[in-house]
């Protein structure tokens, strides 16, 4: 499929605008450069996932509302948050397949004049980059290969699981993010327990367990001397970047691992500046890798 003229409604969800604007800024710039047009949707609400633990029905209704709003616009949805993508995908599938449940949810939606029909699809940005833009087109668009960087990836859970509903990559051995990282020229390192949870959903219930899980990941990434950890989820990013200093203090360890949103890494390879890609919004110091990138680029020119 051509990289051109694909248009999506952008679904921001709660966490991206709440705490991780660098992800949104870099994603918008990278997608525009690669020919993906984003359409704003003024009335989207929370995807529903945060309330699933207390009320599945509420989650279904909130997710269905978003799907209906997209149906009315006649456009598919792109999300930056895997939790939002997973929820909208799952609810779309369930409501299409389960007539009784669809009627029940439509009964609720009727109160606000809406009806679910099941005519749109949802993709996470990773899926859009892979399927709509294509790895080859990304490689062609790279003007500053990041061959000087060795990084590690963290997919997170909801981009992969549960497989039955997400059906995108192999949850036990995911390859998409690795392939997309390598398309920038950077090396993507393997490490222990790559697919382990970041712990974010336990924050607020047991912060201690959540931070233990994040610490495991940071120490595994450090073991292979990765220069940065690349994420594609706002919650995972908060766990590793926003909380890195807190984890270091709690366990009396030093990691100093910069955590980049994938579009920030890609943006560097596409020739954008760290300022354009909102590197200043990141908590962990990124000056070392940015220095290497600019020095590497100079060497390539010579």
């Amino acid at each position, binding site marked *: 499929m051509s990289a051109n003229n694909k248009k999506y409604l952008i679904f*921001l969800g*709660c*966490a991206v*605008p*709440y705490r991780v*604007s660098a992800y*949104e*800024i870099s994603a*918008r710039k990278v997608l525009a450069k690669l020919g993906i047009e984003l359409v*704003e*949707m*003024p*009335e*989207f*609400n*929370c995807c529903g996932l*945060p*309330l*699933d*633990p*207390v*009320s*599945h*029905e*509420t989650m279904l*209704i*909130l997710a269905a*509302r978003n799907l209906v709003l997209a149906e009315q616009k006649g456009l598919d949805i792109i999300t930056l948050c895997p939790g939002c993508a997973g929820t909208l995908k799952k609810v779309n599938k369930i409501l299409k397949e389960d007539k009784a*449940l669809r009627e029940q949810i439509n*009964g*609720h*939606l009727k*109160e*606000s*004049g*809406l009806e679910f029909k099941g005519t749109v699809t949802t993709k996470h940005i990773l899926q859009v980059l892979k399927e709509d833009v294509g790895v080859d087109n990304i490689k062609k668009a790279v003007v500053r290969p990041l061959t000087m960087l060795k990084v590690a990836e963290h997919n997170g*859970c*909801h981009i992969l*699981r*549960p*497989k039955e509903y997400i059906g995108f990559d192999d*949850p036990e051995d995911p390859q998409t993010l690795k392939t997309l990282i390598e398309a920038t020229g950077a090396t993507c390192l393997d490490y222990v327990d790559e697919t*382990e*949870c970041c*712990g*974010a*959903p*336990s*924050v*607020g*219930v*047991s*912060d*201690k*367990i*959540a931070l*233990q*899980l994040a610490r495991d990941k940071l120490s595994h990434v450090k073991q292979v001397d990765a220069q940065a950890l690349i994420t594609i989820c706002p919650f995972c990013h908060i766990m590793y970047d926003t909380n890195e200093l807190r984890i270091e203090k709690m366990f009396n360890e030093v990691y100093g691992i910069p955590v980049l949103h994938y579009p920030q890494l890609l943006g560097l390879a596409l020739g954008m500046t760290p300022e354009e890609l*909102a590197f200043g919004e990141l908590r962990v110091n990124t000056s070392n890798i940015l220095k290497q990138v600019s020095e590497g680029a100079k060497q390539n020119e010579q």
Partner: protein
Amino acid sequence: MTENAAPALKDDTREPVRASEIDPKFKYQLIKMHGSEKLLKCFQCGTCTSDCPVARYSDSYRPRTILRMASLGLKDRVLKSETLWLCAACFTCTDRCPQDVEVASVIRVLRNLAAEEGIFPQVFKDQCTSVLESGYAYKIPDLRIKKRDSLGLPPLPKGNPDSIKKSLKGVSFISKMTNKGETKDERKQ
């Protein structure tokens, strides 16, 4: 933030079982609910627990135990157990269960039932209130919204609280929560 799961709701997963506390019909209620249909296929192999990232660091959270308590009919005990709320919903257990039990969804069903009885951590009440008021699960600070403009980002979607309230007015959890105002959760700091 502190360790939020204070021991007001104690870990009852290890107490001896008394026949008097068994509700033999509970499992039949569960297998009719969306997500826990396959509960009775669980043969207690323990794949869920051994693959669970939370179980590694929790002294009490064991998905296998929770499923066994549920199928045995220890309704009150499982719904009041604080360990129920430790699941991180990573879905590793669901994907790896050799019996295709959607383990994480069974736990979600149990949480929903506990929440119907007013037993759930404060964090969910805050998020629910926020969704009803703003459409978002988190209250996005005004400063953030103003900052978007200076960062060159388009305005945030406004949600539509009136329409959301209409869509949710028939949901029993929402009406219970908004009518009562307070939950039975005693874990508030």
